[in-house]
């Protein structure tokens, strides 16, 4: 919320579940949706005597992330124990990283809707294990504990308090979401909790340096919730301060049903986690050779790809950012351009416009598109070669989407070919002029606006197929008398 008097300050802690096959410290599988506790072995259960063994794949993924956000990879990072009692935390401590995280000091650029770029600092990203979950439904007075998720590897990505609006926070979170999927280190599934965040929100008077007291909103698992929760929280804090109160440092929960945040625990009630280095695990040593080997596996990153789209295809920064928001969308766009080199900008507009709309309408991902890139390229070619108009192309697109046929087949079967024969267009113009004497007289008397009326009528008469440029030219001539 941007307000004349108040400035919003937001930092995010994003938790991304790493796409390893097994857990971070045990050999249990990490597949989602197994029956409760089917994927919890003795290590996950915290049995007496068992010990954690670090999953190398989790380290590789964290390093990959660090390199992708231009961060420093810590040569010797340390696992620490975060001590607190909770039934879904079997050992009574969570193994995390505290003083020496594996990734430190990176950044991420976000492109705002007005095309400007903003840099968000990434303080750190550390490896940790997830907790299990408590189940309260259908168990009467008891609670159940499902430890399938306990020990699932996470990276927690902590940003600087660099964001100034809910919109920026969402843009940043989306960008990280894009990145982790590009890197194939997280499936990004927010419903299943694979990607979620905590938002630290505070407000301060514009022009002041000192940060206001922050509230931490926990466990936001959709972009929409992030935006709504921040809006609510900012308004709440401004309200408190303006009515003479003080914002308390506390942890809050967002209730999506009510659209509000509410207090979970105050600073006074907060745990003293008593962090200390975990003596069961050695420091994680990452040397230059390992970093180089991970760097060699990095794909083209969203920003690099967007820059290439801008320079090679002449796209705007915003369009390039939209098209690179997912690896699949970019791949699709580039496949269209490969088949249809004439006008990448037109291809971009169609991918972001008609195609994205159709996908949204049906709620499917681009991988499941009913229209492959070659088909779309075929349709675009018929626009540039004058066979159909852009407007008719939209109709053809819908028909192709429904039938799965290619552009030429649809154009032929529906008779959509553009009329570019001047004689045929003139004939249609003549007919319209003949049945509209009043409008003709008015036009000629100076009512220029009626030009549109004649265009519409002729288009209607030709089933929309008249070549628009030709029609314009001929109509002007004819109407002038």
């Amino acid at each position: 919320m941007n307000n004349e008097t108040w400035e919003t300050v937001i930092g995010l802690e994003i938790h991304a579940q790493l796409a390893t096959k097994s857990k971070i410290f045990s050999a249990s599988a990490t597949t989602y949706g197994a029956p409760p506790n089917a994927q919890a072995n003795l290590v996950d259960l915290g049995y007496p005597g068992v010990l954690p063994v670090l999953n190398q794949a989790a380290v590789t993924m964290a390093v990959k992330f660090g390199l992708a956000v231009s961060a420093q990879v810590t040569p010797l990072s340390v696992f620490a124990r975060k001590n607190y009692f909770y039934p879904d935390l079997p050992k009574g401590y969570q193994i995390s990283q505290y003083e020496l995280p594996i990734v430190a000091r990176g950044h991420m650029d976000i492109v705002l809707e007005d095309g400007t770029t903003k840099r968000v600092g990434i303080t750190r990203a550390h490896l940790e294990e997830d907790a299990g979950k408590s189940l309260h439904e259908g168990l009467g007075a008891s609670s159940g504990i499902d430890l399938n998720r306990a020990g699932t590897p996470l990276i927690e990505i902590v940003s600087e308090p660099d964001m100034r609006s809910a919109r920026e926070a969402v843009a940043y979170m989306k960008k990280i979401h894009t990145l982790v999927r590009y890197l194939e280190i997280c499936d990004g599934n927010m419903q299943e909790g694979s990607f979620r965040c905590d938002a630290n929100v505070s407000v301060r008077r514009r022009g002041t340096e000192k940060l206001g007291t922050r509230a931490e909103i926990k466990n936001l698992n959709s972009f929409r919730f992030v935006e709504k929760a921040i809006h609510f929280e900012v308004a709440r804090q401004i309200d408190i301060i303006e009515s003479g109160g003080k914002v308390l440092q506390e942890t809050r929960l967002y209730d999506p049903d009510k659209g509000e945040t509410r207090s979970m625990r105050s600073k006074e009630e907060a745990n003293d986690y008593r962090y200390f280095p975990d003596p069961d695990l050695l420091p994680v040593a990452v040397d230059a050779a390992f970093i180089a080997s991970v760097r060699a596996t990095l794909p083209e990153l969203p920003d690099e790809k967007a820059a290439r789209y801008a320079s090679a295809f002449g796209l705007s920064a915003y369009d390039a950012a939209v098209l690179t928001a997912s690896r699949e969308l970019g791949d699709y766009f580039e496949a269209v351009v490969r088949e249809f080199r004439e006008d990448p900008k037109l291809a971009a507009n169609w991918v972001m416009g008609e195609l994205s709309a159709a996908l949204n309408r049906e709620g499917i991902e681009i991988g499941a598109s009913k229209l492959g890139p070659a088909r779309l390229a075929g349709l675009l070619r018929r626009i540039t070669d004058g066979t159909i108009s852009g407007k008719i192309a939209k109709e053809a697109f819908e028909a192709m989407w429904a039938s799965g046929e290619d552009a030429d087949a649809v154009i032929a079967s529906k008779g959509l070919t553009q009329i570019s024969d001047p004689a045929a267009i003139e004939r249609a113009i003549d007919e319209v002029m003949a049945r509209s004497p009043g409008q003709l007289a008015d036009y000629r008397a100076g009512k220029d606006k009626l030009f549109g009326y004649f265009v519409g009528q002729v288009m209607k008469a030709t089933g929309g197929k008249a070549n628009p440029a030709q029609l314009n030219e001929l109509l002007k001539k004819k109407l002038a008398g």
Partner: protein
Amino acid sequence: MSLHTLSLKRLAAGLRAREFSSVELTRLLLARIEAHQPQLNALISQTGPSAMQAAAAADGLLARGGGGPLTGIPLVHKDIFCTEGVRTTCASRMLDNFVAPYDATVVAKLKAEGMVMLGKTNMDEFAMGSSNETSFYGPVRNPWNLKRVPGGSSGGSAAAVAARLAPFASATDTGGSIRQPAALCGVTGFKPTYGRVSRYGMIAFASSLDQGGTLTVSAEDAALVLRAMAGFDPRDSTSVEQPVPDYVAGLDQPLSGMKIGLVREFFEKGLDPDNERCVRAALRVYEKLGAKLLEVSLPNLALSVPAYYVVAPAECSSNLARFDGVRFGHRAKDPKDLMDLYKRSRGEGFGAEVKRRIMTGTYVLSAGYYDAFYIKAQKVRRLIANEFEQAFTQVDVLMGPTTPTAAFELGSKTADPITMYLNDIYTIGANLAGLPAMSIPCGFSQDLPLGLQLIGRHFAEGRLLSAAHAYQRETDWHTRVPPGYE
């Protein structure tokens, strides 16, 4: 022939030569356990029936010409090692009902060698204690004098070997828990380098200090078992990936030219004159064998006890958090709510010393105290390790007393934890520095045994064992059996 007084080495030879069977040996030792358990209380669990089966299986294997040097040899495990299907209590009410669904790596390795488990030994609760008086199952008594403590925490293991109830007992050493009871019971106790023996399945007290080891009659026997126990374990990230030398083959390394460092601080105030006399006599034996004696100093060693009593409780407070009444172990009856479940399960399940250490550890890790206590203790630890390293540039092995005094009377120190903690003043340094160390019998004070401590460089287990073996070939302190257990 009284089999129970034979060394493990001699028993192994006898089993292979079919002079006697594992079943005979096992039956004999089970009978001895039954006879002496009421006075000694050295065991928490006895596993007679499964021992007889394992012994029969070992005999079968030996009869077919199979098996290894340890096949058919009976043992007892400290009740801190998880044993599949046999309860593992850590001498705590908390785990009175706990049956582990898996074997600790040490247990699995020795089982694979064909060794026969007779039972599980008593200890201080969660290995926290120096007298075996913190056990939920009552104190162990010293076979040399039933009014005296056996030492701790591996008191049951040391008493069992001293009373010749088993030729080998496994044990663990966090601050002296193998060496101190070895000294007080007159047996040979060996603590390897930190990381030499897997900690997997060994219920953690202080993870950065805990190390599994052996209690046997002699160094030679220790070498036989250690060879089988040691080695890298992929399930323990702190175990070290280094080949295990043949400790038995290395036993006869000559002593001539070996430099022995006498730690000046070990002989300062607090050392009982009888202990000093015995230790100095032992050192003269080494001189006669060709070793050179040099005095060295570890000026910060006095800080080892306070540093230890910060680091060990800190780790224990976290390690013991898993005992919450939710998944295993003691669970309070009819809890009102979650907090009540936690508070009563832990309040009822843990004994006083364990609680004291959990509270100390929680305190030293708390916000505002962490730097002043935990970080400072770690710095002291590093200093002490550096001093040892410095000493080892001049000498090969450090020697001195294992304990300030011989076994003290039951109940005499329980009221004063600090006096009790000071019992480990000579042993804790090796844990803080992760060094291998051992205690061997070197004499008596008023019919109570005393121990000589040997400390070596990292991974110099072989050097220590051969030095101890050389001494034991010249002396017979280690072969002395407490009266009534011959």
